[in-house]
């Protein structure tokens, strides 16, 4: 077992974890942050995407012990403290960027990091950025439109 100290969604926390516990299982089981979803658990679907030290990564492809001393932001950390939706979340709602919602946390975290780094993306850049996240029910049209809206281009 390893003692780790991590800042999750702005809150410092100390935990004891098994070396083999993935970051995804850690945030869900140890931190009760179940907004991070697990789809494939081998890095294909993108549902578990979180920010580690600001960068979007697959939480299923890291071990919790590896974020010792670091910062993690999950989908729960993106909205306002009063529960207000972030601009990306709001745009997903406006443009019907979600249906069942299972893949949505991964998309929202991915898009949040993408728009921070690419504030005025082309549609091609948007589709490229979304290519690592799989949605099986909404369809990608609404998701692309949501990214365009969040970037300030109301479709």
């Amino acid at each position, binding site marked *: 077992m*390893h003692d780790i100290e991590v800042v999750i969604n702005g809150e410092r926390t100390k935990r004891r974890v*098994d*070396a*083999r516990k*993935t970051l995804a*299982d850690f945030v869900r089981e140890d931190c009760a942050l179940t907004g991070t979803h697990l789809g494939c*658990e*081998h*890095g294909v679907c*993108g549902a578990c*995407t979180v920010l580690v030290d600001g*960068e*979007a*990564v*697959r939480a*299923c*492809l*890291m*071990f919790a*012990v*590896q974020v010792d001393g670091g910062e993690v932001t999950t989908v729960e950390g993106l909205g306002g403290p009063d529960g207000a939706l972030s601009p990306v979340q709001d745009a997903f709602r406006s443009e019907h960027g979600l249906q069942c919602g299972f893949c949505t946390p991964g998309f929202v975290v*991915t898009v949040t990091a*993408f728009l921070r780094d690419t504030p005025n993306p082309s549609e091609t850049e948007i589709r*490229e*950025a979304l*290519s*690592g996240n799989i949605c099986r029910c909404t369809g990608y049209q609404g998701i692309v439109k949501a990214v365009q809206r969040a970037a300030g281009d109301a479709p």
Partner: protein
Amino acid sequence: MKPAPFEYHAPETRADALALLAEHGDDAKALAGGQSLVPILAMRLTRFAHLVDLNRVDDLQGVTRENGTLVVGAMTRQRTMEQADDVPLLVRATPLVGHFQIRNRGTVGGSLAHADPASEYPAVALALDAEFDLASAGETRRVAAADFFLGTWTTAAAPDELLVAARFPVWGADAGFAVVEVARRHGDFALAGAVCAVAPDRAALSLFGVASTPVRCQAAEAALLAGAPPADVAAEAVRDLAPADDIHASTATRVRIAHTVVARAVTKAREDARA
């Protein structure tokens, strides 16, 4: 879908990492970005008693220029290679490596050492005659890319050796470069891909996804350098190929795709050289 238990080590220096690998030998595995190793562990395709995490080892990261060579530290993140302007083939290959979330974690050395035959960097290294520095607790040796890739997921590195840096030759400004692949979905492993570099006095061509290692196409390089039409270069490149027949594509399909990607890469590289 959970890894078997292992003992986790997080050395902070290269020397400590090498000492751990020397101590545990076959029972230990170096953990770089983890974008291939972690899923393999999670699916229990393999297990190791010890994982030596290299993510806190500072002296394995970073890119330096030594005369005509770009030296890439093994733990340099793939995303960094989008700006590796000295070696345009790395810049062109990088967007094809997984997705951006993968490239944020994945490393250059990890991809090379993992040696998946369908991955891009090994084919780039082979085409450019790159060299790898392999370190163990006792010594460091330099191995040519052509001698490094032995088979699927198999390299010339011994269990106690660590790939610490990759050395990519820098070509002149008169050269043109292209990396072209066909995958079922963007970011998936390629069914076949081609790496092409062409300059007035030299040419390089390699394929990936068509054999258990990346493949250098020397006869096709001669045709490429002689100015042969792209289709003729492609015909030469696929002449002796016998890719596996698997669930993703039949042998015939892969050969046909290989032909297509070579022809496209030759055209693009020549355009790039003229630009």
